[in-house]
């Protein structure tokens, strides 16, 4: 514990350097902006800014990219409350009561409690991260290829289980993601695989163009003609500080939301969306006035907003301690770490303590910046929302094209982004979710290497995955997750989306 605190102080020493403070500020501001804007999310933004960070040192770069992750959670609530359109997928639930509060003239209180709740939850999850990540990393040193393979299989099945549409379709996307992720030279024999003679594909398909296409351009194409007439809250914003009664009603939900979000966010594959729905359902169940939910109950804003922020902190734990991303967003961060020449995994904390502790300390500073800056900046965000979507969509497309091109200075990546924009649009229209695809795309090469090494280790026996206790535990969990829907028609992800 004392050692962790000393390391945290060291982290603050790094995070408070002027350059890192500046990039933290840029990250949280960018995050808030993309969170506010419907049509582009943090995943695409991180991919977009990735090439721009090559000239930075890795610590500043990761500090900025992390800032986008949690900044987007703050920004997403603004659009949900003022526009009734979630700026971010993980702010969907905030629309239910946040927008109703705005209609009743309490937009200020809704925005205020959402910012304070996010800050409290963010702080809680950072302390959770400090306590858990190093311990988990020490534990993960015992992991060999079978454990990593089993863990990744478990993560992918959890993602599919939590899919809001068909679980089979989500699994299909995960498998397709593995196929795409393994395109390129074979890691052992260097045989070109599914490259179709295209030289640029020898190193594999880049994550940036895939994400630009799936989450950036596809989103714009999908919103053509839909987001043109968004009605922005027209009233004057007042009373951004919640009153005593608001606090009395919100403190319990914020605490529960923080706990729920953090611990669910820890699980590979869970992310921030499902915990938010769960926290809303929990508060509704615990409330003495459940009928107020959906009609402007402040608990319905406080808990989900705390929850999605805490969940983001939670998702950083498997990323930083195991090197396993649990959401599409952290999958890109994993890609970024690799590009900077760092090896994500249990040794990251030991080998690069400056990066690990610097990033954690910056998260606390970033949360503080967001709290201080976010409330006064809300009128500015409202103005941003009034920019016609025709302009925004055009610029989103342009930034995606530049982002895709600049990673390798190759027009092939633009073609890839365009192809994946069509793929992304069709997937959405045919009720396939792109998130499992991206996660599996990043995990694909790691999964393949772990599988092949495991089989070589065991001389071809698949029993190796069941003979080692940790790996057997992960596989068992994955099997339970896969089989559970056969015995019960209730599935978490689907049940939640239908209920709400």
């Amino acid at each position, binding site marked *: 514990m004392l050692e962790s605190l000393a390391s945290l102080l060291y982290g603050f020493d790094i995070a408070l350097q002027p350059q890192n403070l500046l990039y933290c500020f840029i990250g949280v501001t960018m995050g808030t902006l993309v969170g506010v804007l419907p049509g582009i999310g943090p995943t695409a933004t991180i991919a977009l800014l990735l090439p721009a960070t090559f000239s930075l040192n890795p610590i500043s770069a990761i500090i900025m990219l992390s800032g986008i992750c949690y900044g987007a959670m703050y920004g997403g609530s603004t659009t949900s409350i003022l526009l009734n359109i979630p700026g971010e997928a993980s702010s969907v639930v905030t629309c239910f009561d946040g927008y109703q509060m705005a209609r009743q003239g309490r937009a200020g209180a809704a925005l205020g409690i959402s910012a304070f709740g996010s800050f409290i939850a963010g702080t809680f999850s950072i302390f959770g991260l400090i306590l858990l990540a190093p311990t988990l990393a020490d534990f993960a040193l015992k992991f060999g290829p079978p454990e990593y393979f089993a863990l990744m299989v478990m993560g992918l099945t959890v993602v599919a289980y939590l899919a809001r549409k068909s679980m089979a379709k989500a699994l299909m996307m995960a498998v397709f993601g593995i196929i795409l992720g393994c395109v390129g030279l*074979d890691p052992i024999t260097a045989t070109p695989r599914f490259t179709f003679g295209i030289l640029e594909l020898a190193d594999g398909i880049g994550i940036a163009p895939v994400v630009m296409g799936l989450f950036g351009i596809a989103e714009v194409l999908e919103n053509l003609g839909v987001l043109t007439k968004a009605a922005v809250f027209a009233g004057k914003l007042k009373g951004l500080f919640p009153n005593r009664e608001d606090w009395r009603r919100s403190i319990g939900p914020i605490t529960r939301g923080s706990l729920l979000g953090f611990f669910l966010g820890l699980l590979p594959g869970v992310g921030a969306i499902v915990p938010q729905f769960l926290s809303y359902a929990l508060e509704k169940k615990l409330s003495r006035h459940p009928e107020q939910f959906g009609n402007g109950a402040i608990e319905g804003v406080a808990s989900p907003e705390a929850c999605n922020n805490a969940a983001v902190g939670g998702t950083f734990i498997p990323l930083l301690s195991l090197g396993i991303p649990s959401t599409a967003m952290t999958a890109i961060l994993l890609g970024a770490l690799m590009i900077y020449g760092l090896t994500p995994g249990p040794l990251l904390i030991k080998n690069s303590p400056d990066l690990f502790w610097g990033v954690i300390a910056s998260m606390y500073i970033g949360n503080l910046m967001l709290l201080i800056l976010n409330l006064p900046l809300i009128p500015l965000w409202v103005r941003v929302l009034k920019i016609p979507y025709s*302009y925004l969509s*055009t610029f989103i497309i342009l930034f995606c094209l530049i982002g895709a091109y600049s990673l390798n200075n190759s027009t092939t990546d633009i073609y890839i982004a365009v192809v994946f924009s069509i793929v992304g649009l069709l997937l959405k229209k045919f009720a396939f979710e792109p998130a499992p695809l991206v996660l599996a795309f990043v995990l694909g090469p790691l999964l393949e290497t772990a599988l092949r090494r495991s089989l070589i280790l065991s001389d071809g026996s698949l029993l190796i995955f069941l003979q080692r206790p940790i790996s057997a535990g992960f596989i068992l969990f994955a099997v339970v997750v896969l089989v559970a829907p056969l015995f019960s028609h209730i599935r978490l992800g689907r049940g939640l989306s239908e209920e709400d």
Partner: protein
Amino acid sequence: MKRTKISTSGASAIFWVAVGILTCYGATRLGLGSVTEPGAGFIFFWSGLILVLLSLMVLVDSIRSAEHMVGDMEKINWAKIALILLSLLLYAFFLERLGFVLTTFILLSFLLGWIERTNWARSLGVASAAVLACFAIFELWLKIRLPKGIFGF
């Protein structure tokens, strides 16, 4: 109407069956190796096979029920989307030939003026400002090398 929903969901499943089969075929050509020493096509073959099985499940499900309905396909403006995609492909084709500034200016003017129906004077003005801003941010500040093309800019 119900039949349309089943057939679109079923059609997507058939597409994925085909993708799975082609992946398996490509994997066998790469060489599957053995369980003791997996080859270059090993992961592709098993992934392709699982994809086929899952797609068949979705296909059967779509035949049995109309549950997996497709979203509002008719709301999509396919002509507009095709135009945008074509313009993006042309952008990729001409980017290194004509340079970032000129190609991007043409693309933005087209997207704003033609696709979004913004008035042309404003479209050209916004496109020029955006190109200059992007050039300043990416090329001058972030030191990202943008293509120059035959005109040198």
